């Protein structure tokens, strides 16, 4: 898998590149700001761009803006946004138009190489990844009247893993329950969130987005 990395802090960028190298990924370019990143993507056409949300010049949401631009101009390149913030608002902004091929992870999460590689594969495959910490917080803060507040503990666990991009089988494995049970729980979640039955895998993403936008 061909990857470009954009982060203005050199030691973080270097650490990330080494981790990716060790995991057998091919890092084909590094950028320290959004403009450089866009040039790299245009030149290299990587499978995934890993983008820090805060970059020069204002250190606010440059990465977010760049991520959306990459997705609209180079559909073949997926984007994994890294952030220090458990900011649901940023995640919602990132995913509001078209969640496919996008991910939002906390920066510290990526030192777990398995999680990083898994997330890269999912977004490269057109999936959507949202950091479980964000989903957890959203569910914790769900208002009494909202649909999300009606979810049971088991349903919340499943939804959190869904946000990470796990398949039913993977969810079953993680929660040590049968895959059929996972399917049943998923149906419950979709029903409570008012999502119509749809074989499309995007429904899983929609469920998460729905919580994000509550």
């Amino acid at each position, binding site marked *: 898998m061909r990857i470009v990395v954009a982060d203005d802090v050199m030691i973080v960028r270097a650490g990330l590149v080494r981790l990716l190298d060790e995991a057998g990924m091919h890092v084909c370019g590094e950028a320290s700001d959004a403009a450089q990143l866009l040039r790299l993507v245009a030149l290299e056409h990587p499978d995934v761009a890993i983008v820090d949300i805060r970059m020069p010049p204002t250190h*606010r949401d440059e990465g977010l803006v760049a991520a959306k631009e990459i997705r609209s101009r180079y559909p073949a390149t997926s984007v994994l946004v890294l952030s220090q913030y458990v900011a649901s608002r940023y995640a919602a902004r990132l995913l509001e138009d078209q969640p496919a091929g996008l991910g939002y992870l906390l920066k510290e999460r990526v*030192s*777990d190489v398995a999680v990083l590689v898994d997330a890269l594969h999912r977004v490269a495959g057109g999936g959507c990844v949202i950091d479980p910490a964000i989903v957890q917080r959203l569910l914790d803060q769900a208002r009494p009247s909202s649909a999300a507040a009606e979810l049971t503990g088991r349903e919340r666990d499943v939804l959190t893993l869904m946000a990470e991009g796990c398949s039913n089988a993977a969810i079953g494995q993680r929660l040590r329950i049968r895959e059929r049970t996972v399917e049943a729980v998923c149906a419950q979640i979709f029903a409570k969130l008012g999502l119509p039955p749809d074989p499309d895998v995007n429904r899983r993403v929609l469920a998460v987005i729905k919580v994000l936008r509550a």
Partner: protein
Amino acid sequence: MGTLRGVAGRRDVTIAVTMTVTALAAVPTLMLQPAHPHAVTVLDIVLLVTIVAAGWSAVDEPDSAVGTALISVAWLLPTLAAWTPLGPHVRAMLLAAPPLAVAGVAVLLDSRRRLAIVLAALATAVHVLTYDPFFDPDCDHTCIAAPNLLSTVVELRIATLVVFLLTLAAAIAAIRPRQHQRVGVAGAGTAALTVASVGAPLVGQADTADVLLTVGALLGAAAVWAESNRVRHTRRRIQQAVAQLAEILPVTRADTGSVVAAHFTLPGDGRWLDGAGRVVPDEAGPAVVLLDGEAPAVRLVLGPRADPALTLAAISPAGRLALQNARLRAAGEFQMAAVRASRRRIVEAADAERRRIERDLHDGAQQRLVAVTMAMSSARSRADTVTARVLTTAEAHVRQALTALRALSSESYSEVLATEGLEAALEDVAFRTAVDVEVHLDLTGAPLGWPTQRATVMAVAEGLDNAAKHAGTGRARITVADDGEHLIVRITDDGPGGAHLGAGLTAVADRAGALGGWLDLHSPHGAGTTVVVTLPCA
């Protein structure tokens, strides 16, 4: 005001009557040459009345009163010379008085008065010492030895010339271009007639002097009348201006002859303030300063044509009291503004410091710790089992440190406010709270200052926090509206009420106060809680 107008009215009548009678008195003097005895008596009485009336009308102005008295006496005394019981020597001395009119003009016009008085007095003295027409009525034709120094016609002519020149010099000294033209012209006329009447005998026109004397008396009275009128009008204008300024009203009519502004100063502070407590630049133009003890207290800025002495005299005790009140008010405003500015600076400094710490944590410690976790992860993949276990534990600790740092640095709503604006920040805050929130914005589009926006978001965050704590499961409603000048933030919940101003809301109230706004808390038992924060837009 009624009393003042009454007195002024009486003065006008007195002066008008006096001038009319004096003018009538001049007719017999002109018609019955040489002076008819009765005419002279009438003239004397009239001139006496003139002195009293003119002095009365100008009694508030010592200079005017003295000047008037001098002119009048100078014109009156020679007419008394016709009164034979006084004896020839006294009558001769009375005739020497006219040059003193020039001294009166100098006092009235307040210009080089000392020089003019000395010259005029000298002229009178020379006259007294050298010439006694009652001892030798024909001296201008044939002089005989007399108690005076003169013994020849030539000497008489020389003495008269000296008196004439001295009077002329005094008149020139006294009369120069003046701002108050009516008085200047009348004064110049009086002085010219004086000089002419002194010089008339020199050219053998002794009788003409009588006519000149009468006209001079008229002119002198006219000058005093004009002067006292001017003083009265100016004084009324100044009184009005001072009253307006003391009430902190703008002066209705810019008047170059009056007071145009009042400034105040505080003890030990060299700066001048206007009525609203704003610092004003030093005034280069004319001004009078009122003292409070030894120190300056009030500065009245004058129009270019205003008279400082007149202004000072025109300020009544009530006016002074009003100005003193205005000064206290200005001082209060000034100090309030200073305190507000200082509170605002403190809040802004604290904000800036917090932002700096957040940035430092984010760009420094957090990034390095992230790099550390990556390096550890990298090392773990190549380590033996024992080392890998140690590294895993260490990594967990670093993650905890990262979580703790994030709690410190990243929960600030200023991020969203800066990137997405007020509405998004309010939605974000509302989204993070546990109660059901309805956000309603009704903004006119007036520009909102950054401190105001921050205070708004902070107020909403604390208000919702409060609602979540006390209202429990209830609902909350936020309205943010402005009228172009003030932004009103209202946070209402349907909880049990009875809320007190806790630490969070006190901080909001402090911040609002620092910006010149305020916080109201209504929380009756059993009827919900409403927090209203009012902030200036800019």
